[in-house]
């Protein structure tokens, strides 16, 4: 893949072409994983991964690397948030299938995903509900991705989406309530 194509893909992706995202994904994924595992290895017990830090660093490293530019920092964040979501959800999906080996690459984002699973026990269901939310209200879904998966604060999220923090706060509450409602088993719905 030449750098020209990457830039092109990113542009089409930013215009809403999901397929383009699928194709740049491996590149960014590797970078995220690399940074994550290094951070995890450096830190002693009690210090785990922080998504925001990883994403920031990935951005700095990928920006300009190989001569291509991300359309903007906000784009990169949205992209990385989505990617983290993918990684965590895929991991949750396969967790029971494949036993984690104690082999070479012990520390990966997947281990962070185990952490994530403690926070939100049903990531797969959350992912499905979030997909549904995307179709209903893309911006709310974006808010959730940035907040929950990329770990941004309300203010940062607002900055990245170019709206006021109040708006993000409102959208976040509605989205959160809606998602929570969706995640209840049918009989437990409020």
């Amino acid at each position: 893949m030449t750098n020209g194509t990457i830039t092109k893909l990113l542009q089409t992706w930013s215009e809403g072409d999901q397929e383009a995202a699928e194709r740049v994904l491996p590149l960014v994924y590797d970078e995220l994983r690399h940074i994550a595992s290094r951070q995890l290895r450096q830190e002693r017990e009690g210090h785990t991964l922080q998504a925001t830090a990883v994403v920031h660093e990935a951005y700095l490293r990928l920006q300009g690397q190989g001569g291509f530019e991300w359309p903007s920092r906000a784009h990169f964040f949205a992209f990385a948030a989505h990617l983290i979501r993918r990684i965590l959800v895929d991991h949750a999906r396969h967790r029971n299938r494949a036993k984690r080996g104690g082999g070479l690459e012990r520390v990966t984002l997947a281990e962070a995903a185990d952490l994530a699973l403690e926070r939100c026990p049903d990531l797969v269901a959350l992912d499905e509900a979030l997909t549904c939310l995307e179709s209903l209200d893309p911006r709310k879904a974006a808010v959730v991705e940035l907040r929950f998966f990329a770990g941004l604060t309300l203010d940062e999220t607002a900055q990245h989406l170019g709206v006021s923090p109040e708006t993000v706060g409102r959208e976040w509450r509605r989205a959160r309530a809606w998602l929570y409602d969706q995640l209840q088993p049918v009989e437990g719905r409020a």
Partner: protein
Amino acid sequence: MGEAERWREVDRLFAAALERHTAERAAFLATAGASHPELRAEVERLLAVDARLGSFLERPAVAGADLEERDERGPLGPYRLLRRIGGGGMGTVYLARRDDEQYDRLVAVKILRSGLEGTEIYHRFLAERQILARLEHPHIARLYDGGSTPDGRPYLVMELVEGLPVDIYCDRQRLSVDQRLDLFRRICGAVQYAHQNLLVHRDIKPLNILVTPEGEPKLLDFGIAKQLAPGGEGSGALTRTGLRMMTPSYASPEQVRGEAVTTAADVYSLGVLLYELLVGRSPYRLPAGLPHEIEAAICEQEPERPSLALFRAPGAAPEPAPEAMAAARGTRPQALVRRLAGDLDNVVLMALRKEPQRRYSSAAALAQDLAHHLQNLPVAARPDTLAYRTRKLVRRHRAAVLAAAAVLVLVAGFLVSLIVQGRQLARERDKANYALSFLVDTFKQADPFHTRGEHLTAQEILDRGAGRVSRELVGQPDVQAALMDAIGRVDLGLGRIDRAEPLLAGALAVRRRVLGAGALEVAQSLDQVAAVRFQRSDFKGSEQLLRQSLALKRRLPGDHAVEIARTLNQLGETVARRGDPKAAGLLHRQALVNARRAEGREGPTVSASLAALARRIDEQGDYPAAEKLLQQSLDMETRLLGEENADVIRHRRAYYELLVHQGKYPEAEAMVRRTLEVERRIVGEGHPELAELYNDLAVTLTGQRRFPEAEALYRRSLAAMRTAYGDSDFRVAEALGNLGGTLEGEERYEEAAAVHAQSLEIRRRIYGPRGPEVAHSLLHLAKARRQLGQPGLAFPLARQSLTILQGAFGPEHPLTAYPTQLIGLILRDQGKPADAEPHLRRALTLLARSVPPGHPQLALSKVELASCLADLGRLEEAEALVREALPLLGTRFGPDSPPVKDAQATLSQIVRRRGRTAAGAK
């Protein structure tokens, strides 16, 4: 209102409601949402969810401890940092020494972590500095100094408190209950002092209360304290964040809910602390100890009396044995329980009341009451009144109380029948009394004070009752049978088929033995057992039992018209399930005659018979006639029984099924949503019938091509149904079929085929190979196969489907249109348009005859026929048909929907070819 518009409107109302005070929201929504009750209901639900969300998604998926945190050493002004002694969300605490000429002492230095400038945390840190500067109390850690690090981060210099958290201190020192109370009262003093300085601590917990080796308590960490404006509520902005940062186990209900926090919140936290100091356990039973569980318990669970908590069954978290707890208080378990029971129970529970205004008015009042207790004076705290408790009981155990009421009504019926029969009156009265006192006894156990605060559900009450009935009433067979029947029926109503079956079958057996085979009660039991069979998808078995019951009821002396009508209706439902709506319709007509004889023109059995008949007519495809009857029945029932009646709901279901058959999906959707609201209120959560309603809702969404929403609903509904009814159930098969339809809509044909195959297998098992339901599965399987490019597989399936439907309903039934059309489509795919045309035309005719002109299927069928005609070169006819269809498709599915695009593609192809033909002719 379209989906998008609806969503935006809910957004708007939700946001507007959030800006209002909790208490004002209901009134606001009543006005703002008046025109759209279903929107209003949705907003209300969102608000309710929002209120008890707790920390859901608040902590990022990937976030651990602060990465930036690092040890710092070296000088900081006159202080030298020695080592790190603690850390929190805000920053790190260091042991430090001030070693200039003037002083030489150890202090604690708290430094805000970097990168927080300008954030809320930063401001809160500065606020704490101001707060502490104002406080001077022997039991509050002192602030000495403050400043900024060279890189600009603020820090605090505080009194170094070397001690143990209060709970650990008490246990290590083996303090007695009296000593603990004494220590606790001094803590109350410190809290009271803060309150007098207009500060709410908001995070009172053992870790924030250290006890020095000299035995002096010190209150620490005003990090999330809130300043109360004199006479006002203080700034609300910090409230929610405050909750996020505080320890959930000690949070008050108002903090968990994010409501206004006053000094009463600290009183509550003090209550939790006192509870734990006294008995070493949490006030709440937390099976798994998960955060959301804790928050739910704080808001909803009544705390257990401390005197009962000692012997509480262990939960998820390992708790020390009662002996160890008592030993740490220098006593034995029994003595400790005696010490706590009474006054101390009451004092603690008063501090822990859910409503802030019902707690002690201040920390001082709490301390004062404890002082009274220690001096053997009467305490102010009283247990909740009986009336208050009953209200709470009803609120908390709504489902349980309803179940109890249901059993009582049934038993009252039994008692009345005993009296009416009038034989051996004295003996019967004894029996009646016995039955009554037995019941009262069973339900008394639902009182939390008899169950040590256990959370009793309807299920548990019923199970308890069932167990006692079969064990203890062997000597009173008629009372036993009546109660088994009553409890079994309630179980059946709650969808607990496994529980209901042995009870109802048991009642039947006992009645046969005691009353002989010819009694009315035996027939009634037969009806109940038949209902169980029906629920288990055993329609043949159900039918046999009902026919027995019917024969029995008809033979009975006296007029039992209502009884006979009921059995006839039940029989009709069963026969309809077996695929014979016509025969079933005749049974309902008979039922109607009997019902009218007993009730006159209007009555519950009359309207039930009408509704059932309407369903059968709907199934036979005469939608307008069905609609008229249903409307009649619904009006009558609502008048007679009110909105919230199980029968009314069931018949409203029939109504929206009819709307679906007529393609009126948005109307059907609105109706399902309304029904859901009511049903949820009546049966409570957890009832499998709700899963069926979600399935119905999804059907209406599929009809509007809202596939992802529908799919999610189907999958959840399926999971719930499988749990309630098992895999091999007619409702599961139906939901699978519906899910398959949605997957087809999304063009996920492989998955659709797999799902339909599953449904087919279940249906074949239940209905036999020729049931009409089987035909539906076959049809859809055929559709999926066709789409997957397997016409060879699809064709025989479609044929089979058609044969079954024609056999069951006759050749003119509208449902036969679908397999007929599919056969035509397959033939067209195979390049045989001439063979295909009559099938497609026939399908269109069948449909046009039965569905209203606005039915989208009609338009879709026209487009299909048109493209076949185009293949045959009959372009003019074809073009006319597509043009006829387009406007309807547009209004139904939207201008950019796949059906419209397909139709446009077909049209432009036809037009192109016509142009070419015309040009060729010239």
